[in-house]
């Protein structure tokens, strides 16, 4: 689960991570009031969306698609500029390298005081799956695309792994400060900041925390100028009320939210063959084989290990909401899930929803014969398939080949 920069900074502040004073706004009037309140001559006017690359992104009018402004993060030197930038950002669509072409409608704005920057650093905390521990990554090359830095000059990225039982140790923070060339008051401030961030990371079950840039000011202070934070959804039970309060559902795909509520895992794609599969690996493989046979998958959908009739119906209705869907492939390898139950679920869903696109069903595993018999006995137009390749070939043929 992702949160906005302004929310991340509010959290940082609670842990003693230095951030600049700022105000969350939803209208241009708010932004002007924020400017008056902050009393800073120079302020940053920052689009708030759940995607990176905002500074280099462009804003477009939602209806006409006309370019409104270049750059989703602006430095304003006057009250008038604040008003102009805020008006150009709010209600328009920000397209960045991470949003895809369709971009994201900006509903939130953060107006933040300025500071005198001496140097920009990069700092991130994340879970390193290979090392099975929290990884702290820092670089002197802040403000840049860190993947490019990693590619071109990997020696400029410094890493420490935190032993989960020992926690972040003093010498590790000192080493990292040294590696960044920090000394004196700035080194001390960096170590204090890193300690606070690590505590914040662990206590809040973060999946990732990226601060790009983390800056050293002319006064040798360390300040987090950005905050990209995401939480580990598996830990929702520990933070339910806090997370539900700050979760911005408008930033997420509506159907994906509904699928998750029904215990399904759904990701929309651009193709025209809907898929309904049990198990994440098999669901991905099903998409792959559809593509291999010349079709294009319309979605990833995992109904999980123990789906019931109701979930199968919900899954079908979510797939059918996508107007691009021209056919559906159901691929079930019954383990815990019995094929006869799936077969009944499919029939119930088709009858309930009045399916008018071709449907291919491949069943294997537990109670497969009963499942096949149930499908065969129905008068509905359901095409059986023997294996995954056969199923994919059939559905591609039934919709008249792949997408042009």
């Amino acid at each position: 689960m992702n949160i906005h920069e302004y929310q991340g900074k509010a959290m940082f502040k609670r842990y003693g991570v230095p951030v600049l004073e700022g105000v969350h706004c939803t209208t241009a009037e708010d932004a002007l009031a924020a400017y008056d309140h902050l009393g800073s001559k120079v302020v940053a006017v920052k689009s708030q969306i759940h995607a990176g690359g905002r500074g280099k992104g462009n804003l477009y009018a939602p209806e006409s698609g006309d370019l409104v402004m270049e750059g989703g993060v602006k430095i304003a030197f006057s009250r008038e500029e604040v008003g102009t930038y805020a008006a150009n950002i709010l209600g328009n669509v920000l397209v960045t390298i991470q949003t895809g072409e369709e971009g994201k409608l900006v509903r939130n704005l953060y107006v933040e005081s300025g500071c005198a920057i001496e140097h920009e650093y990069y700092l991130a905390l994340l879970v390193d799956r290979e090392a099975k521990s929290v990884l702290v990554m820092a670089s002197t090359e802040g403000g840049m695309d860190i993947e490019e830095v990693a590619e071109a000059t990997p020696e400029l990225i410094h890493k420490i792994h935190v032993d989960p039982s020992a926690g972040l140790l003093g010498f590790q923070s000192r080493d990292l400060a040294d590696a960044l060339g920090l000394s004196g008051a700035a080194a001390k401030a960096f170590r204090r900041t890193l300690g606070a961030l690590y505590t914040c990371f662990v206590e809040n079950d973060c999946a990732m925390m990226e601060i790009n840039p983390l800056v050293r000011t002319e006064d040798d202070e360390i300040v987090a100028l950005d905050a990209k934070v995401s939480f580990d959804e598996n830990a929702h039970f520990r933070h339910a009320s806090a997370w539900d309060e700050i979760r911005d559902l408008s930033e997420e795909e509506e159907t994906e939210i509904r699928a998750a509520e029904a215990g399904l895992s759904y990701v929309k794609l651009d193709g025209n063959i809907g898929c309904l599969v049990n198990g994440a690996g098999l669901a991905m493989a099903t998409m792959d084989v559809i593509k291999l046979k010349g079709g294009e998958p319309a979605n990833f959908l995992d109904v999980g290990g123990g789906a019931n009739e109701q979930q199968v119906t919900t899954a079908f209705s979510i797939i059918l909401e996508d107007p691009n869907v021209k056919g559906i492939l159901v691929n079930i390898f019954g383990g815990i899930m019995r094929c006869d139950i799936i077969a009944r679920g499919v029939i119930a869903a088709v009858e309930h929803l009045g399916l008018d696109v071709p449907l291919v069903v491949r069943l294997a595993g537990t109670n497969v014969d009963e499942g096949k018999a149930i499908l065969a006995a129905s008068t509905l137009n359901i095409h059986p398939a023997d294996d995954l390749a056969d199923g994919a070939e059939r559905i591609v043929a039934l919709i008249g080949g792949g997408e042009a």
Partner: protein
Amino acid sequence: MAIWIPEDAKVIVQGITGRQGRFHADKMVEYGTAIVGGCTPGKGGQTVELQGKDFPVWNSVRDAVTATDADATVIYVPPPFAGEAIMEAAEAFDAIKGEGVIVCITEGIPILDMVKAAAYVEQRPGVRLIGPNCPGIITPGEQGGAKIGIMPGHIHAKGRIGIVSKSGTLTYEAVAQTMSIGEGQSTCVGIGGDPVNGTGFIDCLAAFESDPQTEAIVMIGEIGGNAEQEAAAYSAEHVSKPIVGFVAGSTAPPGKRMGHAGAIISGGKGTAEEKFEAFRAAGIACANDPSEIGQVLLKALQEAGLRD
């Protein structure tokens, strides 16, 4: 002899009184797994009926292992408590026997809980963790065998193919593919789709390589991370037996979590293409489609002189 879990391994069930635990314990007994009881804190002294027979329940893993000399435990404990259940089992096996296999089926464990649990297990070298978020491990026997997890037992048969996979149902698909060419399995291991887990591909490859019963290996990966690339590099150096590989997620878009917490292409890394390339570079015979695994395996066995 199979790997880690012999056909007659004695197994306890953590969370045996819960709905999931009881359901799967019953299926395991039905398959022929030597279930010797289970544990649920506060329910020690009770019994659970599986396949018409009563099985004892203890309060702790320590009590259960002390009483039964179990070789393995399987965890069906809800996510908030699963990390600790793993550590409890690791502590008990280490203290009492110096060894043991922990199979954690639970899906949805917070990643920082797993970071802690994985480190805890690694400090106890005789203890092996399989999972979490996995179908488990199965060593089919001539009759019955040891099924520790949630996989459908009846699709398996004893044989000489070792299978290792990140995914559940895709593993079943691979099993069915070996059966389609008349081959059975030595051991099938589902290592799970979480970003942080216990046993990895390399552990499995090393074990299959030294297992006399295993003559060829099927390895199924998916997008995310670089465990497959590392396993490929390892196999080129250390594995002499034929390997057939498949990677799920060629069509997955970057930045989207595909069901499994670990199945995500981030920063352009961890793509299926990258992994297939690593497999091919290591001499692993790749199937482009899971329905081809059988035929690719057959060819690999023929080339190795293991089939006519």
